Each structure stands twice: as structure tokens, then as C-alpha cells.
């Protein structure tokens, strides 16, 4: 023990420093940081899409070269990781959405489970629509 300066009527408060690795101490905090990180995956796919549209606008050859490069193992690995993060982002967001959205039908409050299920339903409908647009002959 050391002997710091102490004044009776103005005691020193102890302010404890937060560790840089605070988010590793509890799964809920780690999950939160992963969810924040997943926004990088969103940015990755947005950038990917924009480049693809640009190549399509340039020429067919340019687009085919883009598709060729997209099959590179490094890019494919990045895509898979980004996709997993996107799914994680969507699932964790849908899990907390009922807390943020309070809807009423008439005077009755919509049950949180209904809000969560409606998110999943919208996800499925939009995914099916995109799949239909892309796969139809």
C-alpha cells in the first residue's frame, strides 16, 4: 500500500480504466462487436455490386473479365465470409427489431413475435422475388 495525498472533505475517486479487450469478456459484447463489424460486409457487397454494374455498362468483354476475376479463390473466400456476416447481421437485427418497433392495430399493440416473424417473412418474399428475377429464362 502506498500513501497518496488524502483530504478528508474531498476524497479521491477511483476511476477504473476500461480494457481495450472489454468486448472479449462476455459473449453478448463480442456478439455486439461482430454485428458492428458486419457492416463492413455490407459495404463490401455494395462496392462489389457497383463495380459489377460499371463493368456491365462498359462492355460485354469487361463484364466477362469481371466475372472471371470474381472466381479467384481469395475473392470467393471473402464473399463467403462477407455472406456469413450478412446473415449474422440480419439474424441478430431481426432478434432485436421487436424491441425497437412498437406497432398498434387499432388500440391493440402488435405482439413482438409477430413483428419478428413479419421480418423473416419479408426477407423470404424479397429473396424469392430476387431469385425469380435472376433465374427466370
Amino acid at each position: 500500500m502506498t500513501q497518496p495525498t488524502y483530504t478528508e472533505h474531498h476524497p479521491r475517486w477511483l476511476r477504473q480504466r476500461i480494457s481495450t479487450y472489454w468486448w472479449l469478456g462476455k459473449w453478448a459484447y463480442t456478439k455486439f462487436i461482430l454485428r458492428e463489424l458486419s457492416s463492413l460486409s455490407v459495404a463490401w457487397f455494395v462496392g462489389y455490386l457497383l463495380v459489377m454494374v460499371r463493368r456491365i455498362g462498359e462492355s460485354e468483354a469487361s463484364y466477362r473479365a469481371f466475372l472471371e476475376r470474381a472466381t479467384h479463390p481469395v475473392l470467393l473466400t471473402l464473399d463467403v465470409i462477407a455472406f456469413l456476416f450478412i446473415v449474422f447481421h440480419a439474424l441478430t437485427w431481426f432478434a432485436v427489431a421487436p424491441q425497437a418497433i412498437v406497432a398498434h392495430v387499432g388500440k391493440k399493440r402488435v405482439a413482438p413475435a409477430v413483428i419478428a416473424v413479419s421480418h423473416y417473412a419479408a426477407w423470404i418474399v424479397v429473396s424469392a422475388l430476387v431469385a425469380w428475377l435472376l433465374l427466370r429464362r
Partner: protein
Amino acid sequence: MQVTRYRPEVETDTTVEEYEVPCPRDWVVLDGLNYVKDQLDGTLSYRWSCRMGVCGSCGMMVNGEPKLTCATFLADYAPGPVKVEPLRNFPVIRDLVVELGDFMRKLVAVKPWIVRSEEKSVSEGEYLQTPDELEEYKQYSMCINCMLCYAACPIYGLDPQFIGPAAIALAQRYNLDSRDEGSAERLAVLSQHEGIWGCTFVGECTQVCPKHVDPAGAIQRYKLTAAMDWAKSFVMPKGAGSRST
């Protein structure tokens, strides 16, 4: 029990002291601390009052989790040790006693009381409210200011300017009260960066709340309200309301 001690007159940092306490099935952590205080070491400092989960005084970290020590059973941690520390994210005054001034200032800033533009006279009678209107804010009125949510919130720990979960939940409690007319005044405080936008929805405040207030939900609802008001101000520059929903 492993109890964190901080004696500013002789120490520059915390130390941990171990005490052997009985562990009857009906003893809570606070009973263990009271046993230490009464039987083993009278110098131990901590706050408590009602011993029934109402006053919100006895919040501490128990095995790393923010808990009301009057509602946390020792037997759940048997055979121990039970680690008791002061609430995280607050300056420690002594042992398990933390400094509350910052929270109190923030609480006052959000005006957690009914604001009226014009008060009715007594002869006009009381402000009536239906059960449905009561139900709108009742959940948020359960807050006992125990500050467990602040101890669970990493944002508050990293940025002490953040107004924090309980103060925002209490602001929402009054915004949703049909008798209140102060939501615009509160929004002016809470729409700043250190208000609702400081929250990144970690959600732990809701998990640790002993009264199921759901401060995280309150903050996200408030964000939605603020965003809608902002959007309305473009569409209806003169007519945008600020009643929270």
C-alpha cells in the same frame, strides 16, 4: 466472499479481501455483506436500504454481472467464492460505494416529470387517464434508478458523456404519458449525439434490468420518433409534431 475494497486514505487502487460467511438458503448477497460488516470487518462500506428490490441502492457487480444484491441469492453461487465489486463504469468513492452525481445530473436534464404548457387549476379537477393510456408508459415507470443498466453499458463506460439507458427510458416514460406536453423539450436534449444516437444497441441494459424496463427498447423507439420528426419537418415544416409513439 471476495469483496473489493478501496480505502482512498491509504490506497491508490482497489484490493480484494476474502471473508467466510454462512450460506443459508434464504440469504442474499446483501445479507453476506451485512454479516461481514456486523461480525468481521466494520469498516466495509456499501449502500443499501429497503432490502426488497425497490430502492435501487444496493446495485453491485456480483461475479462480474450487475445485480441488486438484495435480490441475488448466495446459494446460487455456492460453494463460492462470490466476487463482489462496485458497479462498473462509475468512479468509486470507497469500497463498494460509487459516485452518483453524473447520473443524477443526466436524470434532471431529461426532465423526468410531467411538463405542462398550462397547468389546470385545482378546481378543474385531476388529469384523467384511461387504462390503455397508462399501459403505454407503465413499463418504463418501473425504473428504480439502480443504475445496473449503466454498469452493463459499454458505451457509457467508453463515453461518459452518453446520457445513458435509465435517463432515456425515464424520458420516454413521460413522453408516452398522455398528460405530458414536454416531449419537444426532452427531444432537444436527447437528439444530440450524446443522447439517443450515442446508443449502438448493445442491449445489455435490458438484460440486466431487475424491473424489466427495457431501456434498450425505449432508446430505439425514441430514435424512430426522432427520425420521423426529422422527416416530417421536411414534409410539413410548420406542422411537424414531436409526440413520441
